[in-house]
């Protein structure tokens, strides 16, 4: 990149910052943490294209055009599988908050790492039942709570038992019901959105919930190998856009909105958590001081361990 000769003295070169930043991010790669929420048998594991029977988070390295993504998936076995599912969302919410708490703890350390390990959940794929007419009571309860702590993307897995008409009607009902319950899904509208962002986001919102078909199998169709499902009446190709929204979902999460997912988690959900935690700590200290003065029992602990907080300078109330 060369500057015109008569501007040599004025040229500093900060216009290469964008390129520099890009190169740095590309070299570092992205960490994308996704949690799958849905009953067993809804097709969660087939969506990941990786066979696992573990309960622990599973990590996969993806690379495309020089961009590296470390994708970590957490499943939620047992969710919604009981006769009485009251409270089944509690462990999920707790997991998400625990990751925020762990990050906060690392961030607060006097000697913290240069690059803090980020296990915060950037996206939650919520699995809808393809048979239902729309949202079930359990879906409404859980979605309301999940959208408060993370970016939620609703998905219809195993959508191969829905005809196109049924799928369209289902998506419409879901959207109506989500709007009625004021359930906020990612991507969120923002006034600073550029026009192409708005158009892109609108097209994403059209597709939601993503009707996908997952497959762990590679099958041969007319000499070609495809990833799909072979029924007695035809073969489903999961990458075929007329068969499933899988390609759109993948592009959405791993390409167009990858950095958005991470950024929004960091700037919105995490900050919200951090603020409420630090406020609690402040109140806790005040209560402890009061209790110490009067000799009463110590109050309950917030999520971030007190030991870390000792290093915080006392702030004036």
């Amino acid at each position, binding site marked *: 990149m060369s500057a015109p000769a008569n501007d040599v003295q004025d040229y500093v070169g900060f216009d290469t910052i964008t390129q520099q930043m890009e190169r740095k991010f590309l070299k570092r790669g992205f960490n994308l943490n996704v949690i799958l929420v849905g*009953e*067993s*048998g*809804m097709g969660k594991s087939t969506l990941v294209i990786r066979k696992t029977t573990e309960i622990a988070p599973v990590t996969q390295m993806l690379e495309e055009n020089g961009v590296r993504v470390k994708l970590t998936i957490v499943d939620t076995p047992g969710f919604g*599988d*009981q*006769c*009485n*599912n*009251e409270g089944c969302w509690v462990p999920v919410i707790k997991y998400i908050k625990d990751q925020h708490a762990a990050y906060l703890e690392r961030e607060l350390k006097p000697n913290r790492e240069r690059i803090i390990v980020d296990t915060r959940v950037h996206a939650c794929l919520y699995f809808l*039942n*393809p*048979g*239902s*007419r*729309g*949202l*079930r*009571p*359990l*879906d*409404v*309860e859980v979605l309301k709570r999940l959208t408060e702590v993370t970016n939620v993307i609703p998905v219809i897995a*195993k959508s*191969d*038992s829905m*005809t*196109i008409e049924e799928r369209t009607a289902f998506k419409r*009902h879901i959207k*109506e*019901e989500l*709007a*009625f*319950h004021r359930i906020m899904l990612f991507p969120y509208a923002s006034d600073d959105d550029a026009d192409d962002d708005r158009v892109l986001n609108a097209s994403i919102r059209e597709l939601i919930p993503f009707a996908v078909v997952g497959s762990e199998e590679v099958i041969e169709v007319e000499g070609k190998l495809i990833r799909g*499902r*072979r*029924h*007695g*009446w*035809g*073969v*489903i*190709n999961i990458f*075929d856009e*007329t*068969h499933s929204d899988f390609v759109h979902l993948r592009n959405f999460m791993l390409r167009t909105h990858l950095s958005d997912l991470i950024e929004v988690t960091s700037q919105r959900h995490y900050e919200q958590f951090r603020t409420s935690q630090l406020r609690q700590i402040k109140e806790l200290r005040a209560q402890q001081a009061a209790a110490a003065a009067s000799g009463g029992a110590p109050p309950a602990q917030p999520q971030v361990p007190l030991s870390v907080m000792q290093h915080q300078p006392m702030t004036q109330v």
Partner: protein
Amino acid sequence: MKEGSGEDQNVAPSMYSHVSRPSSHRNKNARKGLPFNVMLVGESGLGRKTFLNTLCESAVITGSEVTNAEQAHIAEPMQFKNYTVEMDEDGMKIILNIIDTPGFGDGIDNEQCFMQIQEYLELQFDNVLAEENRIKRNTKFNDSRIHALLYFISPTGHSLREIDIELMKRLGSRANIIPVIGRSDSLTPRELVLFKQRIMSDIVTHSISVFNFPDLDDEDEDAVEENSELRAMLPFAVVGCEEVINEDGRPVRVRNYPWGVVQVDNDEHSDFDRLRYVLLNSHISDLRDRTQNELYEMYRTEKLSGNTSVLANNTSQAVISAIGA
């Protein structure tokens, strides 16, 4: 069929047993129509309504009443809805009474559902018991005991869920349970085979009593073979659909997907036709008979002797004989 025995003067031969005799075709009651009561149980979205409409070849249950977003998510308490359709099956007239259970399993806490269904089934038994013991009995008594309970299993492809096991365990001694996989077109043929195996294995493990096509006459080789085939098909994988297209002049019920067309009546695509034949033709008498002679009698004994351990003993015997084959 139990005849009145000398030892117990309170036992009278059931006055309804003549209706369940297999060769009732020339019977006056047969001209009026053979009553057959079927209950459909399963979460919404598994195809109960579509199954019924496909079975009766007419829109018995029309589209859902809830159309607006505000109400759609509200957990309606489970209801019992009755529909009656007159069917003609190979010249035999059947009064098909369907009891649907919308709301089953749709809430967050579904534990009440089992009790409600059990109470319903027992109430019908109680009605017969009361009527039997009347001094002046009503020959036109309407027998509303459930002859077959179709339980719709979700096509997860894994194994039975807690709600499936709980329901079938609790109700196996009160009705002939026929397990059915709803929306089975979401499974590939291979997945379906494995799923069926796992379900039947779960059923044995949990000592669940389902209608196992028992051989009533060991000498009838054709029947024995047929029962054995049907046993191997359990649970029935159904695909229901109400769309009919014209193929070579014949009406064919299909589901149109971008990747292919499912034919409901094609035995390779679904067990629907076989199940229909079982319910309305080949096993209608067996189902009615077992309801009367085994399930009802067991209940009656328990009720009259006030001894629940009797029921427990009979249940385990029934389970053993049901699994036996």
